[in-house]
């Protein structure tokens, strides 16, 4: 029982207009986690939610094709690898595991960097989960 998409021009236009702002908001939430509520996780979810909104407006399959799975996987895999690199890297620098203050920037920026990685992971994963659940199954 696949959902048939009703391509409403109003919805599509609205989404087209809103999506860039939503993405920007996601980035903002991610980057300003240090000063205000929010952070990588919330920002990532907002970004993913934007993609999902797009998918609702334009249909899942076209969205998957448009976004390209490689990009989605690349985003969260890159986030994971970067986070992992920080975790293990500080040990190689002679410090403790995940010793953010050993990074060549101030602690604050180190924290923000990690927030960005988290944002990437969450955005990528949540988008993937949505795609997988809506595309998966059906015994293909």
């Amino acid at each position, binding site marked *: 029982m696949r959902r048939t998409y009703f391509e409403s021009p109003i919805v599509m236009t609205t989404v087209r207009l809103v999506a860039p702002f939503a993405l920007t908001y996601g980035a903002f939430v991610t980057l300003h986690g240090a000063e205000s509520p929010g952070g990588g996780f919330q920002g990532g979810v907002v970004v993913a939610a934007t993609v999902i909104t797009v998918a609702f407006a334009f249909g899942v399959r076209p969205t998957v094709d448009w976004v390209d799975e490689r990009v989605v996987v690349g985003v969260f895999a890159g986030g994971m690898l970067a986070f992992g690199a920080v975790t293990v890297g500080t040990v190689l620098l002679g410090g403790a595991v995940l010793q953010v203050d050993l990074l060549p920037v101030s602690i604050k920026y180190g924290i923000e960097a990690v927030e960005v990685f988290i944002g990437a992971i969450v955005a990528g994963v949540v988008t993937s*989960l949505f795609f*997988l659940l809506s595309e998966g199954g059906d015994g293909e």
Partner: protein
Amino acid sequence: MTVALELALVVFVVSTAVATAVLRDIVASIAVFAAFSLGISVIWLVLQAPDVALTEAAVGAGIMSVLLLVTVAKTARASDEGALVSVNPRALAAVGLLLLVLVSTVPALPEVGSEEAPALQKTVDGELTPYGYYVEEAYNETGVENSVTAVLVYYRGFDTFGEATVVFSAVVGVLVALGGSRRWGEE
């Protein structure tokens, strides 16, 4: 924030939770669940947890509902006889027992918001507690105003690494569950 509002919120979330439980139609259930999540995120705001509120709103009301709906769309929307489920006495008894245990501990718990609560002491035996440390020292040490972020990434960064791993595990798990990774890279 008045006590009345707080009580109203509590009543709201509990009733939406009960409604979620008793509604037979799964889509209706999901809709009420979204309302429940919104109610909860207001409670987070009342409890001065804006980070949690933001997350709850985005996840509980947003992502979670979408995923649930997608799943229902992929499967079946069973809505046979009656709008509400009938009560299952055995389940009720089992759950009632647990509730009895939980309720009996409530009077022993410190009142919410009380300064006497052990979790809100800044020092114990002259040493800073985690709470004291996070509100007194964290900003000086990290330059990050939002101490939730400071704790999340810096002080308890390893939890967050674990959290990222959990998220990643979810996608791996879904891939495995849905029949391997062949789907990726196809088409």
